[in-house]
């Protein structure tokens, strides 16, 4: 019999941990989809390395969520047994890989946000959160560098690479606003000084992305309507398909190991 979905009793901290973990897991899974398809062997390894960094971050956050929820759930239960509406990741990270330019722009948008975010979280009085952030920050710093170098080269490359990079910026721009959104639960954690306010990082994020985009000779979209809903479980049609890939084995053969 297939494994049933779990419903998590979400306190603000559990919900917060799951959302951040979901960001990392879903983006890590997206990067893993490049396995065997990357434009060159060197980049194949780079994408897989970044994907593994992200999945490692997700594991640490899910494990901590399990301790905080104290319902006897481990990282696998959260990853494999929640339905699409239970996922709280950003819409940005579930967007399909598209071409290499889209993957790199998505990575730059996310990494340029999460890197200063982890740095701010390192000051959290919660020792576990601070430790997870300290480890993740070294990884995200490299992700920023790697994706930025590629966006610069794509923008400043051939007419085709320029066009594709610009298309990626234009298409993904509407998903960037959600990174700075918070709800009442997260605001209570911010008020308690436990986690940083993402809205406070908007200027830093914009400056670092704008610098890369300018160097690439590309144009950063301005303002406009922003998509949201991922944080509250209202996802694009892409996440369900991703999860059917990710969860199939554990749903069809509960507890299977190999």
């Amino acid at each position, binding site marked *: 019999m297939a494994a049933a979905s779990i419903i998590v009793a979400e306190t603000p901290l559990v919900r917060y941990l799951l959302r951040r973990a979901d960001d990392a897991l879903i983006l890590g899974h997206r990067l893993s989809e490049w396995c065997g398809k990357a*434009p*060159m*062997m*060197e*980049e194949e*390894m*780079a994408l897989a*390395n970044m994907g593994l960094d992200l999945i490692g971050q997700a594991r640490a956050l899910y494990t901590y969520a399990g301790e905080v929820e104290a319902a006897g759930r481990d990282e696998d239960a959260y990853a494999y047994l929640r339905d699409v509406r239970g996922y709280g990741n950003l819409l940005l990270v579930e967007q399909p890989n598209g071409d290499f330019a889209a993957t790199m722009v998505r990575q730059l948008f996310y990494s340029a946000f999460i890197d200063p975010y982890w740095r701010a979280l390192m000051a959290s009085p919660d020792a576990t959160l601070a430790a997870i952030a300290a480890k993740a920050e070294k990884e995200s710093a*490299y992700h920023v*560098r*790697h994706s930025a*170098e*590629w966006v610069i*080269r794509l923008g400043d*490359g051939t007419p085709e*690479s320029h066009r594709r990079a610009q298309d990626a910026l234009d298409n993904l721009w509407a998903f960037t606003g959600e990174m700075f959104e918070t709800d009442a639960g997260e605001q209570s954690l911010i008020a308690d000084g436990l986690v940083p306010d993402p809205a406070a990082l908007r200027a830093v994020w914009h400056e670092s992305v704008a610098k890369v985009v300018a160097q690439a000779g590309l144009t950063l979209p301005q303002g406009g309507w922003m998509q949201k809903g991922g944080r509250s479980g209202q996802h694009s049609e892409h996440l369900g398909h991703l999860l059917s890939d990710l969860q199939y084995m554990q749903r069809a053969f509960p507890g299977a190991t190999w």
Partner: protein
Amino acid sequence: MTGQIIPLWEVFIRSRNGLAHKHVGSLHAPDATLALQSARDLYTRRGEGLSIWVVPSNAITASDPADKGMMFEPTASKIYRHPTFYEVPEEVGHM
């Protein structure tokens, strides 16, 4: 991109235990910055290194294998160049 010729780079890693940078392999990259990043991704996945050098392969001048007689054989008969003719005092121990 793959249709174009991407330059080849030689990678040298200095391992944790110090000593000199050692040649570990090669890779393709469009420029030095990305060569360094790729070297990190390809050759230091298991904590192998603390420092990386990348060198354009075409910057290396190599000896011609056809010259090996002239280049290397004359040393074969000069065994006195090996430090095997010294008596090492017991107290020195393992050198």
